[in-house]
């Protein structure tokens, strides 16, 4: 099992463009979370997907949207890119034994997004 995988590894975009990042969860996991990590800071929660629906959302604008597919993989879309969106975007997967509860999240290597 390769664990959580993310693509692409690096991405360079210009202001105003749109970007799509992809994530494949660890085998057996059904929940995907996305985090933004700015340089020198801890990861910040963007949103979480479970059963193809957004289950939880952090304090991020509507420019940030996502999707989960039937095979549990996920995409993060960011529209109208700003310079401040430059960051490492982390995907994490977990297995929801029940509707609530904290289950260990396993992280991918991240996608480094640079907005010029």
């Amino acid at each position, binding site marked *: 099992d390769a664990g*959580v995988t993310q693509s692409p590894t690096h991405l360079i975009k210009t202001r105003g463009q749109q970007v799509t990042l992809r994530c494949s969860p660890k085998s057996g996991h059904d*929940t995907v*979370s996305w*985090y933004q990590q700015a340089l*020198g*800071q*801890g*990861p*910040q*929660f963007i949103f*979480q997907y*479970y059963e193809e629906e957004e*289950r*939880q959302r*952090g304090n991020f604008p509507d420019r940030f949207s996502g999707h989960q597919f039937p095979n549990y993989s996920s995409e993060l879309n960011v529209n109208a890119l700003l310079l401040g969106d430059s960051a490492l975007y*982390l995907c*994490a997967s*977990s297995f*929801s034994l029940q*509707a*609530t*509860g*904290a*289950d*260990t*999240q*396993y*992280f*991918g*290597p*991240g996608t480094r997004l640079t907005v010029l």
Partner: protein
Amino acid sequence: AQRVTQPEKLLSVFKGAPVELKCNYSYSGSPELFWYVQYSRQRLQLLLRHISRESIKGFTADLNKGETSFHLKKPFAQEEDSAMYYCALSGRDNAGNMLTFGGGTRLMVKP
């Protein structure tokens, strides 16, 4: 609202010295606390979680609800412990299990 604070950005110790990485949290409900570690050029990985009460790589952490703290400790630091350490909180009362991270502490263990 959930909040995690790691007051030290950098902690530098000599090999064999004791280590304590501080973590304080704010949460009105019943929290679950984690320590994640990121070694150089590796992904973020779970070090330990408070409900497991395990000792991983010699590290331990005790949840102190009175002081709202979850400090990470190791009696004798090793050079391979050099890494970024993040304290994280998940609220058991949430519909999901989002993690709120602290800003991280870089631990440097000098030979």
